[in-house]
């Protein structure tokens, strides 16, 4: 088994499975967050957040999600290090843009930037809700005010969150179909299908996460 986890294809399986798991989480997370802009009273979002905080299944999933992130991130560095080592003398002139997509060549950079965003994001919201709930208690509309409040008062935060959404979308524009290819769940018929579904998914993620801060930045709420 340990041989499997360090073999080139084994490493990729780990990336793919953890990536697929994270993509399911992202879909759920986006669905819940969109409640922020569909109900300005905030009660829908608060109900959703309450459900997530109390549901036993979600409680079990929380540490598993954390683990999923850790595995994906740690393995990504192992994998990229091994791949980087495989070419000790670099080319003086490279012309790779015609042969492969930019996102596919920069998955580590995109992932690392997503990670930077993720840390800020966790400090902004998750940390507060989890470890200093007293900061939310005085807010009239609880969790909703914490999130919507940040977006209402800080254009900087809005822009940061828009960038975060776009970066994740770019990561997934390659990552989605790639994870099926890695598992071998692909053939000449499915390649195009996975890529189309992947592009749609990536656009939904990028646009979906971006319109939330945009909505507050442009003052579209009542």
């Amino acid at each position, binding site marked *: 088994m340990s041989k499997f986890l360090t073999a080139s*294809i084994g490493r*990729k*399986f780990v990336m793919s499975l953890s990536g697929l798991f994270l993509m399911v989480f992202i879909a759920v997370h986006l669905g819940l967050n969109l409640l922020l802009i569909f109900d300005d009273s905030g009660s829908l979002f608060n109900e959703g957040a309450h459900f997530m905080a109390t549901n036993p299944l979600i409680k079990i999933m929380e540490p598993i999600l954390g683990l999923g992130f850790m595995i994906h991130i740690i393995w990504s560095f192992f994998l990229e290090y*091994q791949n980087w080592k*495989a070419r000790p003398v670099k080319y003086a002139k490279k012309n790779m843009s015609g042969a*492969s997509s930019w996102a596919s060549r920069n998955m580590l950079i995109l992932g690392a930037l997503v990670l930077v965003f993720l840390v800020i994001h966790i400090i902004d919201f998750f940390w507060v809700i989890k470890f200093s709930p007293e900061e939310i208690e005085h807010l009239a509309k609880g969790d909703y005010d914490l999130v919507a409040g940040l977006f209402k008062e800080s254009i900087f935060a809005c822009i940061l969150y828009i960038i975060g959404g776009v970066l994740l979308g770019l990561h997934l524009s390659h990552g989605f179909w790639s994870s099926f290819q*890695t598992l*071998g769940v692909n053939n000449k018929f499915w390649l195009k299908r996975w890529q189309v579904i992947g592009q749609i998914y990536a656009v939904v993620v990028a646009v979906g996460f971006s319109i939330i801060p945009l909505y507050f930045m442009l003052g579209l709420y009542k």
Partner: protein
Amino acid sequence: MADKILKELKIKVWRQKNAKSKGKFETYIINDISTGSSFLEMMDILNNDLIEKGIDPIAFDHDCREGICGTCSLYINGRPHGPDTEVTTCQLHMRKFKDGETIIIEPWRARAFPVIKDLVVDRTAFDKILQAGGFVSVNTGGVPDANAIPVSRDDAEEAMDAAACIGCGACVAACKNSSAMLFVSAKVSHLANLPQGKVEAKSRALNMVSKMDELGFGGCTNTRACEVECPKSISIMNIARLNREYLKSRLSR
């Protein structure tokens, strides 16, 4: 259409005395090259010039010069086998270049393909991968009737497409990870699709991938650069099959 003449080209080429020495780029000027000549003919003309000037000619690999042996290599202007698609360097023509252009020529760069001299790299790593699993068991005795074993048309076609791989190493050179996955997947697919290849099916993918890792090739991240640069258009769908075959071998032990 008559061939044009490229009056002057600057050839910036990697010179390295032997495997141990450090190596550096040298720039040579070459005049009056017909656009109808092949890239390797241009190299021959350049080497003649160098010999006349008492300079050691540039070492580069070539053999068949008709796109079937896979010996010629060269990373030209940032791409394996240069600016044309679906061709080897010996099939590349000078009409793909402009008068006055600087052409940068480098050897394949990969830890598993060390430079021996100038543009020549040691590709025995591919032979070692083949020895690890790219073979089938054959009974001694009489030759079996070719039609006795039914093979579906689709399987035969896919096996033949994969068998078109000439082992040139452009996939490794093109890959940002120096991965040999396209090569390995072509060899695995070519055998896994045919009944004759079933005997070793369980261990083949595992053994070949383990060898590939051991020799210092990188892993695949599905950028697809390999299939674009492959002179034989080997498809990355073979890599998906290799991944399946690998998973199967892993799970069966």
